[in-house]
């Protein structure tokens, strides 16, 4: 039998504000345990939370960028649960009147364009970190992350494969990065997803029973977890068994998920309106102001790159998916004035360097003007393509200045025909066998001799020039 997979996501993203959501402690990642904590974010009795106004601005920005309607009068609610990661024994969140509702994100799936609907976006505070102490078999609590502002972005169950989930997350991440709302560093937990997944026989109208997998923080783990969990559920149905609604934890090392204890599963939060925080009113003027400060969003940028620069759809998709590649691309175009060549260098040479070194675009740390400079020098014929690649590698790993590096290492193209000729003559004397083979009619020998000559010239002579001289000598 065929099965359909239905997936909805709850994405948590930590906002790039300087201070926490209800106090002025820093949101900086890291730091010694409990050094970014005050009376408010550690939940001392008698303290009052005060909302960070930038959090509201970022929430509205995100809502507008994901086509949501903004709740003009919204408020906070108290979500009660007793777990040491929350010192107040409740999380301040939004249940009844979330700040954004009813939006969508458009993804380019295999089946063409698809809208993933956003059910709601709400503001809330992050929890602290629990560290297991194996020596005393107890738990240590660090509240540095406690009170860092979060947006929870809840989608409708509109995705049906791991690929669609990744497409959606990539698009969402690009939107959050473009708007400057979050840096979305998954390894630091600033973008993480809960996956709600169910399966049903193809054609069945009502959805199957769903399970939830919490706090997934890498695209690879998400893909594996979705594939494993849908397989597990299908196998249960095939055996005539039932899927039990539960929260499961994905163990990426073992490649399996397991059910979490039911105690943790008691979703009875006894929500009630948060009495410590007055409601929030958002005016037309504020919305207009935020709208006018919105940057060009990924989808629009992509379309513009295609129509204005004539770039291929695939390339624009890759580049516009990452704000860091966009920064590099736009700076390069500004300098070399040739979008196609700039895109090509990013898609081929940069991608190769990123892959070889296992670097993410967000960790690119060379001067963004360097790639444009290399392209200009190359196009002026001052260096060969081989040299340009070599210099770009140096830029990538060591952030050298292209001009200085080329000058210091004498990498400019050789223009002295006599010197090139002398070098080639040396090569021919050393490769008498190939010369004779060529003269005997073996054309491959010529390619070999060109290669040897280029090597002797350290790639600094233009290939056409070398070919010409070589033909001239060999007759």
């Amino acid at each position, binding site marked *: 039998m065929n099965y359909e997979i239905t997936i909805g996501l709850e994405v948590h993203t930590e906002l790039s504000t300087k*201070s926490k959501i209800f106090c002025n402690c*820093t949101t900086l990642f890291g730091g010694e345990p409990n050094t970014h904590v005050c009376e408010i974010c550690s939940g001392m009795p008698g303290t009052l939370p005060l*909302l960070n106004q*930038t959090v509201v601005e970022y929430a509205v920005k995100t809502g507008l960028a994901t086509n949501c309607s903004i709740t003009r009068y919204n408020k906070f609610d108290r979500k009660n649960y007793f777990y040491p990661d929350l010192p107040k024994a409740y999380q301040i969140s939004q249940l*009844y009147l979330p700040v954004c509702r009813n939006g969508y994100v458009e993804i380019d799936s295999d089946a063409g364009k698809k809208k993933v609907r956003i059910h709601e976006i709400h503001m809330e505070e992050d929890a602290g970190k629990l560290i297991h102490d194996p020596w005393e078999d107890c738990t*240590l609590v660090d509240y540095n992350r406690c009170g860092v502002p979060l947006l929870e972005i809840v989608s409708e169950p509109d995705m049906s494969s791991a690929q669609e989930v990744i497409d959606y997350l990539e698009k969402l991440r690009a939107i959050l990065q473009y708007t400057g709302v979050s840096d979305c560093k998954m390894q630091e937990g600033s973008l993480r997803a809960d996956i709600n997944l169910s399966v049903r026989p193809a054609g069945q109208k009502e959805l199957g029973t769903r399970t939830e997998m919490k706090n997934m923080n890498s695209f690879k783990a998400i893909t594996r977890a979705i594939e494993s969990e849908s397989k597990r559920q299908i196998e249960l149905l095939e055996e005539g068994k039932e899927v039990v609604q539960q929260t499961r934890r994905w163990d990426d090392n073992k490649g399996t998920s397991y059910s979490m204890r039911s105690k943790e599963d008691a979703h009875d939060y006894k929500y009630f309106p948060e009495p410590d925080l007055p409601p929030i*009113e958002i005016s037309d003027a504020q919305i207009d102001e935020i709208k006018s400060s919105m940057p060009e969003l990924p989808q629009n940028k992509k379309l513009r790159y295609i129509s204005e620069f004539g770039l291929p759809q695939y390339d624009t998709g890759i580049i516009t998916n990452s704000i860091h590649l966009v920064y590099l691309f736009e700076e390069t175009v500004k300098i070399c004035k040739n979008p196609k060549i700039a895109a090509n260098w990013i898609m081929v040479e940069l991608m190769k360097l990123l892959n070889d070194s296992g670097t993410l675009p967000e960790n690119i740390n060379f001067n963004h003007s360097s790639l444009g400079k290399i392209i200009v020098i190359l196009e002026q014929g001052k260096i060969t393509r081989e040299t340009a690649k070599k210099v770009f590698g140096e830029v990538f790993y060591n952030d050298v200045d292209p001009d200085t590096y080329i000058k210091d290492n004498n990498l400019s193209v050789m223009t002295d025909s006599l010197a090139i000729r002398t070098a080639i003559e040396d090569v021919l004397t050393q490769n008498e066998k190939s010369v004779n083979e060529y003269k005997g009619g073996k054309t491959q020998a010529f390619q070999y001799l060109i290669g040897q000559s280029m090597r002797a010239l350290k790639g600094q002579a233009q290939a056409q020039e070398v070919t010409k001289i070589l033909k001239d000598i060999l007759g």
Partner: protein
Amino acid sequence: MQIGSDLVNYLEALARIELTDTQREKCKSDLQDILSYIDTLNELDTSGVEPLSHSFPVTNVFHEDCVQESKDRDGLLLNAPFKKDGCFKVPKTVE
């Protein structure tokens, strides 16, 4: 609504507290009183009255997004019953 022992046990579990039998009986009758009072309130016709989300007529009370120094850690941990390595120490949670 009648408050039974099951409900009191459930609330104990949610709140991670354990009551003595005497406390349970007391809790049961207190909760019963609270709920009867709500029943009294429910006799009022509130159709056409906007739900109240806050007791003061104020909105938009904010702090500016700037960083101020956090509390020094020794002070923060001063009242913690148990601490270790700059952290609050609590009984082992799951995993």
